[in-house]
């Protein structure tokens, strides 16, 4: 449980970080909260020659209000996300999903940006990012670019972030007044999700005006459940409507098989959990 030898730098600005990454080449890894990378290093599943530690770049931490969006620094810890009043008011889904991660120690170390770039399909923050139409701001030698969540997750453990780039912030359009729920299904409290469903719903006069639903661990990347959304919008917010809409949850998914679940069971769970998540988000008892 001792990693292979590596070099280590701890830049204090994003520019320094990018410079360090460019010099190190493909063998460098960025260290954010370390809750995934450190175990991987200790198990020697990866052996980077250089770690670029972002923890000393203070500009990457914190949440700010930017008009119609809130902006979350990539190095904001899960604990800070959960307790941030802006997030709770305008992106409650993110706070709810983040609460389900690991345990208090993990939530005090782990970061939003780290979890997104790690892109574990069973990770709990990818689906909320998709459901909330988040945009990822990435900086590299070529400058700054913005990638929508729908394009950010490329494959298993792979995102649009290139080896010499850094995710610096996550921009989330405000969904003020929306109901939200993250329905997570796992074996034990600290385990990864077998399947989970992120749902955000805006109701108007007893009807569903807008709905956003995304699924965790139903494919290599988070699945945007557009079929469910279409079936919900404009319908009365009743248990029957929601149950019918949730029947679309497994559409477009390609779930994997593991010791916890075979694909047909995952598909079934996706439908059941979607129904429960949307019902909760719409303020109905599941």
């Amino acid at each position: 449980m001792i990693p292979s030898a590596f070099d280590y730098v701890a830049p204090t600005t994003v520019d320094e970080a990018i410079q360090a990454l460019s010099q190190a080449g493909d063998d460098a890894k960025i260290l954010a909260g370390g809750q995934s990378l450190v175990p991987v290093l200790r198990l020697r599943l990866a052996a980077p020659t250089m770690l670029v530690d972002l923890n000393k770049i203070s500009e990457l931490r914190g949440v700010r209000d930017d008009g119609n969006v809130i902006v979350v620094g990539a190095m904001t810890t899960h604990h800070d996300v959960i307790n941030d009043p802006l997030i709770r008011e305008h992106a409650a889904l993110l706070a709810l999903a983040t609460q389900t991660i690991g345990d208090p120690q993990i939530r005090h170390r782990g970061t939003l940006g780290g979890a997104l770039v790690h892109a574990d399909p069973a990770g709990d923050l990818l689906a909320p990012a998709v459901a909330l139409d988040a945009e990822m701001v990435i900086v590299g030698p070529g400058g700054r670019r913005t990638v929508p969540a729908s394009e950010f997750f490329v494959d298993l453990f792979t995102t649009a972030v290139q080896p010499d780039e850094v995710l610096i912030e996550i921009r989330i359009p405000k969904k003020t007044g929306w109901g939200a729920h993250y329905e997570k299904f796992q074996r034990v409290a600290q385990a990864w999700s077998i399947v989970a469903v992120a749902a955000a719903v805006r109701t108007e006069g007893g009807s569903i005006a807008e709905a956003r639903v995304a699924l965790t661990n139903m494919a290599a990347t988070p699945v945007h459940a557009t079929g469910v959304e279409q079936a919900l919008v404009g319908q009365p917010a009743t248990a029957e409507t929601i149950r019918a809409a949730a029947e679309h949850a497994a559409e477009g998914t390609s779930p994997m098989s593991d010791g916890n679940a075979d694909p047909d069971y995952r598909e079934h769970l996706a439908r059941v959990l979607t129904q429960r998540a949307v019902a909760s988000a719409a303020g109905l008892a599941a």
Partner: protein
Amino acid sequence: MTATTQPTERELGRARRRKEDARLITGRTRWTDNISLPGMLYMAVVRSPLAHAKITGINTDAAKALPGVLGVFTAADLGAEGISLPCAWQITPDMKSPKAPPLAVDTVHFAGEGVAVVVTRDAASAEDAVEAVQVEYDPLEPVLDMEAALADGATLVHPDLGTNRNALWVFDSAEAGSGGDVEQAIRDAEIVVKRRFRQQRLIPAFMEPRSVVVDPTGEQLTMWSATQVPHILKTMASLTLGMPEHKVRVIAPDVGGGFGGKLQVTPEEALALLVARRMGKPVKWTETRSESLLAAHHGRDQIQDITIAARRDGTVTGLKVELIADMGAYLRLVTPGIPILGAFMFNSIYKFPAYRFASTNVFTTKTPTDAYRGAGRPEATFAIERIMDELAAELGRDPMELREQNWIKHEEFPFTTVAGLTYDSGNYEAATAKARELFDYDGLRAEQRRRREADDPVQLGIGISTYTEMCGLAPSRVLGALSYGAGGWEHASIRMLASGKVEVVTGVSPHGQGHETAWSQIIADRLGVPFEDVEVLHGDTQISSKGLDTYGSRSLAVGGVAAVKAADKVIEKARKVAAHMLECSEADLDFIQGKFTIKGTNRGVTIQEVTLAAFTSHNFPEGMEPSLDSDYTFDPENFSFPHGTHLCAAEVDTETGWVTIQQYVCVDDVGTVVNPLIVEGQVQGGLAQGIAQALFEEAIYDEGGNLVTGTLADYLVPSAADLPHFTTDRTETPATTNPLGVKGVGEAGTIASTPAVVNAVLDAVRHLGVTNIDMPCAPQRVWRAVQAARGAAKSTSEHTTETAAGGGLGSIDAQGGTQ
């Protein structure tokens, strides 16, 4: 003179916080891995990635060329080819025993078996060197399925044995004269129920990984080890490694849990000793968590075919138990005996007139199995409590009522069972009555009916476990009759110090149980000295020279009693001295609360004053040895038999298969209680471990024989967040076979809880047609069982369960990108 005052409050029964906890919890103590000696080297083990293979080449050049590497050794290099790790239990005269060298010779027999060791100047270099050792293998077919392993023509794990069958061990009540013929009972029965249960393989998963430090530089070689059994380790190291016993000192410093997993003489202990002797320097080995899960011995792993015979009125008439038990690749310290420890417990608290038990022990190419909390008795309790529920279902009877009809009544004790054991005491009615009251049994049954009638997606089930177990291992004559290689006595010494303080030396070896507190309480009461004045010493064979260590809930019932009897000898010696000091006869003295007083007067001397007199010996009774110190070796006349009633209410979400324990009540009777807080801790921890088997834990091998649950992300040890609130209570029926009336509590919770939970899960869905769910009752299994019963499931054969990890840590490969 001492300033000590005599205590007035009784210690026995007092809920003291444990005096050892501050150092254990903060880590400000000596764990084996904390030990650092001058010039100490580090050892790490190169392990086989294959379950079964010929070793065709080991190239150590690259590893030896790395900085900090001082040596790379194979079995041949260490002269270890002829060494065989000890198995202390020859269960039958014709039992097959493979050679068990500490490193593989020519062939590896399980994934994780050691092939070579590296020795380095620092711990990091050792891990680098392990990766650099190149081993070439010629794969052989793994042997994974126990029944296939027993079939003709099966690939043999150890071809020289000519079979994969380790032994067949049988107990038959007709042959033993303790009961009738079970085949006759089955033929005559009005109802016969037969079921197959699976005891999945479990991993002890103690908190502190194993660690050993060997210092060869003294006149005695010293070995520190994170072990439950320093005394056994010393003797076995001497017998198997050719060390004269008086030249070995073993120390178990503070040890972080064991659960039977550290009741072992490990390959790594032997290797550290061999390497230290060769290098002439201290050597440390500490395993990683992954190594611990892979290579430390596993537990359980049985197929249980259970046949119960009964009359229509519910009276049981016979029980037949046919086990197939997985030994894994080698026999470790007590591997073949684990099923035998359950052999006398399947009949449990019920009055079976006929009983037969047969265990077929099998070798496979998996990690060896051995003791794990309960060791044989959880397996037995699970099977009997599950089959009693099945019988109740067949008869349409309330499962509690069926148990009451068949159990031993309190007025029938002592009771000799069909398995030949004599239960000294117990009161199943009292424990059950209390449990029912705390549980609201009738109210929950009504709620269950309501949900069934409403076809509620979340169904409710009630699970019962009315268990007993045998503790206090063990009467030496019984162990002898079972061909075990040692006795079951325990030793203690009391040393009275000049200042009136007391040292208690015990031969048991705590690794988290709280013996220091409990023994201090017992001895403080007995000698009438303050709790704070007692120190309990253990675990170092130079201090505790004699002992048989801690396992099988034996420490208090055997070791605690030895300490009491040693204290009684101290008192008898002190009485002579006190009589001399007070110039009276011994018969005129009362000994109350630490003071000898002449009857009818207030003239007296305290035990501390007597102790000082013994120290100075200026004026000592003629002809008496000038010391109060005393030893006692206690051999119990019988086992002790804790019992209790556990009730579990579980909800099953039929839409997802999720199981929620809604309520858990247990009333345990562990005899006299020394410290209720420690008992409570043992019960709660035991429940967690038993529930873990029911719902969470399973060691899974893939078809190549590789352990796929090799990290704690995959091997699901539950935490407090996954467990319900436990309502615990006790009845106290003292054991009649020891002076303290104690029975033992280390394993009760684990033994009792597993069937209570599984019975509850099945009771929730039995009306849907489900009759069995294998453990752990994971959501997918429960959901599929419900689907299959409803006939709505697609054929499960369409979906082969692959063992590749999904998301999460296990799926990250070498390219795994992370930020």
